[in-house]
């Protein structure tokens, strides 16, 4: 290694440090709903669920609105797992699939009046307060975006999965990257606004 190379190396590393310091805050995430690479993709582990729920059948093939089942998303901080009687409401009447093992399992839980122990796929640290309601109200109801886009921005294209799997980092930088973007106030205007930039909005 020549001296020149050594010097080059030092300069290069310096440049990298400084460059990332300056450039990092300007990194732009993907536009909402694009579900494309926004630089924060992080595939989570496969989570074994008590019943291998086929999202692809329900949301994909049938095209059921996410919020038909995850009904709390628009009125609570958590989107919630559908209550068991909601599953039964349909499946009691769908004779064709009654014999499938997954449905049989569902009926077993129902008969025992036991809640299904679903596991959390999208978990946030305990000091974070994420509010589904506000996001759904803003982007689904006010901006009138398609539900799969609104939910998909954080959850990925669940309609193509069976059981859900985390696809985004759900990290602070990722949240902030979107909060800093200019979003349309509502469908009719061109006025834009950002997400809250206050620590206490998300940290509790």
């Amino acid at each position, binding site marked *: 290694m020549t001296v020149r190379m050594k010097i080059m190396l030092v300069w290069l590393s310096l440049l990298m440090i400084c460059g990332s310091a300056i450039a990092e805050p300007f990194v732009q995430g993907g536009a909402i709903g694009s579900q494309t690479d926004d630089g924060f993709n992080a595939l989570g582990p496969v989570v074994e669920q008590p019943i291998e729920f086929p999202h692809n059948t329900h949301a994909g093939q049938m095209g059921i609105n996410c919020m038909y089942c995850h009904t709390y998303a628009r009125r609570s901080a958590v989107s919630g797992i559908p209550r068991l009687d909601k599953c039964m409401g349909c499946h009691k009447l769908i004779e064709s699939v009654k014999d499938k093992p997954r449905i049989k399992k569902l009926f077993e839980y129902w008969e025992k009046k036991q809640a*299904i122990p679903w596991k959390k796929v999208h978990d946030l640290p305990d000091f974070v307060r994420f509010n589904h309601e506000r996001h759904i109200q803003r982007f689904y109801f006010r901006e009138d975006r398609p539900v799969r886009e609104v939910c998909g921005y954080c959850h990925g294209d669940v309609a193509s999965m069976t059981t859900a799997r985390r696809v985004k980092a759900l990290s602070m930088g990722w949240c902030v990257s979107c909060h800093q973007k200019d979003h349309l106030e509502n469908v009719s205007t061109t006025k834009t606004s950002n997400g809250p930039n206050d620590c206490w909005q998300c940290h509790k």
Partner: protein
Amino acid sequence: MSSSIIDRRGFLRVLGISGTAATLAGCGNTSIESGVELVESYVQPEDFVVPGVGVYYASTCAQCGSGCGIMGRVREGRILKLEGNPQSVISGGKICGLGQAGVQVHYNPDRLTTPMMRDGDGLKPVSWEKAGAALSARLGASSPISGEQIAFLTGEISGHQRVLLDLFMDSFKSTNHVVYEALSPAIGQAANKAVLGVEQPVLQIDKARLILSFGNDFLGTGPSPVHMAAQYARFRKAPRGTLIQIEPRMTLTGANADRWYAIKPGTEGIFALGLANSLVQHQAYAHALPADIASVLKLYDKETVSELTGVHADTLSHIAGMLWENSPSLVLAGPSAEGHANGFQNVAAIQLLNLILENNGKTLQGQPAHPFPQLEPARSSTAALAKLDALMASGQCQTLLVMGCNPVFTAPAFVHFAKHMEKVPFKVAFATQLDETANQCDLVLPLLSPLEAFGTHVAGYQPKGVEVMIQQPLMERLYPETRAFGDILLDLLKQRNPTAYKAFPDYYAYLKTAVTKAKPVFKSSASDDDFWEDALRNGVLHLELPPTGLQAHTEALKLGKPQVSESDTQYPFYFVPSIKADLRDGRHANLPWLQESPDPLTTIVWDSWVEIHPSTAAEMQIREGDILSVQSATGIVRVKAYLFPGIQPDTVSMPLGQGHSQYGRYANDVGVNPFKILNPIFDERTGELAMYATRVVIKKTGENAMVVKDEGPTNVQQGRKLVATLAADQAALAKEVSRVTQ
């Protein structure tokens, strides 16, 4: 509709899978994990149950007898916090610290989770079958005991629990339902009854222009502190009333007085008569009293009164003048005036002032007759305990049942309650947590906490109209082996009389039937189920009734020459126990929030102490934290000294409620129990224990320990403007914005 209630109970039962998993991770966990925790998941919840959103249910606070309506915040199946229920006239949407701590009764780590039965020396957990069998063998259909052989000892109890209990005792042809509260206001009640015609007049604190209180701690430990605090708040708004407090040791109410006077314990009646004597000099009041009383009153001239009470003679004239000028006024008697051999006399003399000042009907009113007298709380007394004690000592009592009271802890040492209890062959305690008394029993049955059980309460003090308070479960039971007191009683009653109660599968059914039966009284035309649902939703059944008048009975006062008990050279100090608003008689000492909540006046936590005036302390060279022995004729305790300016110099004071030995991790070995050194002095008229009449001698032991308190080395403001004070005549209160007066 009835099914929806069952469903609601069902909701509590088929709760979410992680309803009980609380997070303790805190800031430690910064990582995002998948597949580690479970999601809230329901089977068939009510529509209004939304995960992540708190739901409020109305219920009733069971922490004291005030019967405040409360709202419990429930989330994901857990009761998180209690708030006041705005529907309840008593609480008016507010709640005290004691009430807040109700959740800690429920979640107490020392809760009793299974029945316990005596096995040799200790109590061993047993199954309900075994416990039930033991109970049936003694108290079932074939039980031979009756009359005096059985006794049911409870604390203040009201509502349908009391009805069932009475029915249960009836089935044994026994009247031995002993209601014992260590801090029973029985002397005052008896005197009120004699002078005013009612045991507990309804106070209109907010209407008074001047309150003269003889040791009445209505803000801290009165019959309904939350309600009275709200009244007090209005009393303090324009036109602002004045509060004068006279007592040997400053209470919380005294600490809020415009003027506080120290008085020798037990001489409150003399002072009141001195005031009466001054008052009747005024022409407006000259004919307020019958001539015979007025003539005896002349003996109470201000010099004599001043000498006996230790209050300056000018003070007496000054207060009399204030009473003249400020009408309507309100004169109150409190525990420190009641708890003496002449306690009845004291209260009667104090109430006489109300009569002279014609406050009855204005600031004092009679409580309307309760439409359901059987639901009203049975009046407690300490004399009843003495009777029971004699019964046990004589060996007559064969079966003792105890619920909601702890006489082994609260009975003074001279009663020897624990020893006499041993003579009872079968003792049953119903408890949410083992205490000293339960530990002495042969069978202990675990009860549901008040946040898990249905019930009704009726407060002894009804400030406005009449209320029946509804208690409902706010949460699924924590321990499957615990049962409702009502259910146990109902089971026993069914064994005694199977036909009469077969319509009621459980206590809930009984309660619902009983409450809905009262529908006509509340002038409701709703269906039974709607009425019941409404009752549950509101947490209270309110019936507006006009207050009744009071009848004056001046003859009840037996006037004699002014005299006080001899001073005692062997025991030179008056001993004044103080009641802490949160610990009361000690039943709440197991609640950590209350242990850590500083005593308002001394800011001491987790301890007992003896208060002594700084001037006396200086004479005896006592410093804060010096361990003193406080000795009465019947006992001795060793306790830390605290220098407290709000106390008569020849008086010492100790807080009640500490000194437990078998009441769980938070209460055990904290402080000492001053109940144990009370002398056997009784009120001459009622035979009740005179709690404030004990005399003690204090000695330094030479040891010193830190007093754990919030207060630092200074207790004054050091010239910083922290709490500023404005003279009442300068403050423009009438112009202020206030929601309290509305």
